[in-house]
């Protein structure tokens, strides 16, 4: 299973929003607040084709980072983390793949999604979605969110130091 430190996994389990940063067209960082999902090994994010620029960026350069920073969005947990990793866009069938892959994880954090799904006819393009699967490579963890102190750095076993 996963190698991420337990406090970072705790953040992933509760976070309603994380900040995904991708490498934009001109090499500049572009950040997207998204709901992060975690299955104990990989991190999953997802995006409607309506808001698919981030997917274009990831396909061009799969290196990404996910920051977990907002205590309000993490049930009051003040800790913070940044996870760097390699992303893969899963979209063989944007109509159905995501339901099979991440709907269970999604509804655990956002139960209202089932109500939206019942009226899929009203939002057809919103439910054409791609899944972003992130394989974590490195994590930085700041206890109590104190980023003025050096983070605890952990790397995927076997990964080379940058």
């Amino acid at each position, binding site marked *: 299973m996963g190698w991420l430190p337990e406090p970072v996994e705790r953040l992933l389990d509760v976070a309603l929003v994380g900040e995904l940063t991708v490498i934009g067209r001109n090499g500049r960082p572009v950040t997207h607040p998204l709901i992060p999902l975690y299955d104990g090994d990989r991190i999953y994010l997802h995006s409607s084709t309506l808001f698919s620029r981030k997917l274009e960026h990831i396909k061009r350069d799969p290196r990404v980072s996910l920051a977990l920073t907002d205590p309000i969005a993490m049930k009051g947990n003040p800790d913070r983390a940044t996870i760097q990793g390699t992303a893969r866009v899963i979209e063989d069938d944007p109509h159905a793949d995501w339901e099979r892959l991440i709907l269970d994880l999604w509804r655990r954090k956002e139960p209202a999604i089932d109500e939206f799904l019942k009226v899929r006819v009203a939002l057809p393009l919103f439910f054409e979605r791609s899944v972003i699967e992130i394989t974590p490579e490195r994590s930085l963890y700041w206890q109590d969110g104190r*980023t003025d102190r050096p983070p605890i750095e952990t790397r995927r076993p076997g990964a080379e130091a940058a």
Partner: protein
Amino acid sequence: MTADVRTPVRSGSVPAHEPTREDLERLAGYPHVVVSWIDDAGYPTSVATGFEVDAEARTVTIAATAEPIPTDREINVLGSHIRPQPGVGYDQRRYLQLWGRLRDGRVLRPTRAWGWDENEVPFFEYSERSVPQSRKYLAQLSEEKGRPIRPRLSPFWLALRTTRLPFLSATAVPVLLGIAVAAHHGFFTWWTALLTLIGGSLAHLAINVTNDIFDTLSGADEANTTPTQFSGGSRVAIYDLVTIRGLAKLAIGLFGAAAVIGLALVAITGSTLLLWIGVAGIVVGVAYTAPPLKLVYRGLGEFAVALGFGPIMLLGAYVVQTGRLAWEPFVVSLVPGILIALILYVNEIPDRRSDAVAGKRTLPVRFSPEVVRTGYLAGAIAAFAIIVLGVAIGLLPWPTLIALAAVPLALRVHQGLKVHYDSPYTLMAVMGTNVNLNLVVGGLLLVAYVATIVTGLLLT
């Protein structure tokens, strides 16, 4: 009097722009920022920290972090907010991000900004603005995969959305009323009545699809970024759920089926009058958006709808049963004619900006909100006054006065227009009440006619 249609229609997602003082003031409202950059290994990395904003100087001073933030490359500074809703998810989404390079170690003078606040641009509008991006992305994906990848809906929901099936109540009310008035006059054949209802419904659906084709081709629907369940068209072609060719085939099929039923009824009744009424209905329905007449572009849209869903539908149903015209069904037909035109009229309010861009001259495009609201009240009063006058001159049976019980619904719509005129999404409840007004008035008139017929039968 002119309408408030000057606000330009924006399409696509919220565009990036040069940071303004307002952007900086907004950023100051966030409790912390996330600073991101591309590290020496080529990965994005981020660190959350405190910050101070000098909106006047358009600068952001980043608080010190243990992780050194580079000064030799562009960084991204993001403020983000949600409000958790336990058991539901979250709401109050907003974010703002700025780009630039740090000067003097920790001071950012941003050169680019981009963000979204769902209080200002509701999620549905934001989604509509992003439809071109979805189309572009799916086209690219189709190329990557070497097979067409298009959005889908289940056949049931696609049929419902494409034909705008729920709007069939607009046909059911006048057709059933025409049949009821004919029965009141001693003429009723159940199977021709059923054929009339089916034929009228098919013609209505065909006209819906045809209007969608022309509204898509003219760009009127695409320019509309605030569609609702009552307005803005089916959007199935814009969303690429159905091609224009597919819509055209569907319209031809529906028109064909309606024509077969219509001609069968003409043959059964032997009424050439019915033939002309049917032809008039199709012409008015198609000419609503189709060239060369394009009635809605000439300021005649509401009149065309009142004519089509009032006298044409109701008299057509009456003629099928009786083979002749009469004053009573004509007077009754004015009521659903006006009320269904009022449905269109209110539904045109959220569309007025995109309609103006497309060159449509609907009443909400041409007149101020105050005039439009007064116009609604006048229309509703006229519909009820026709019933009262019809009874007063002995043309309508007195039980039809029961339809006046729906007056509070009309008043609720009028009041709702005062409060929600500029908010397409909160106006939806008002539009729903307005649809119900036609159903309730139509239903009560039907009840009145059935009661009159039953009473007459019992007395004889």
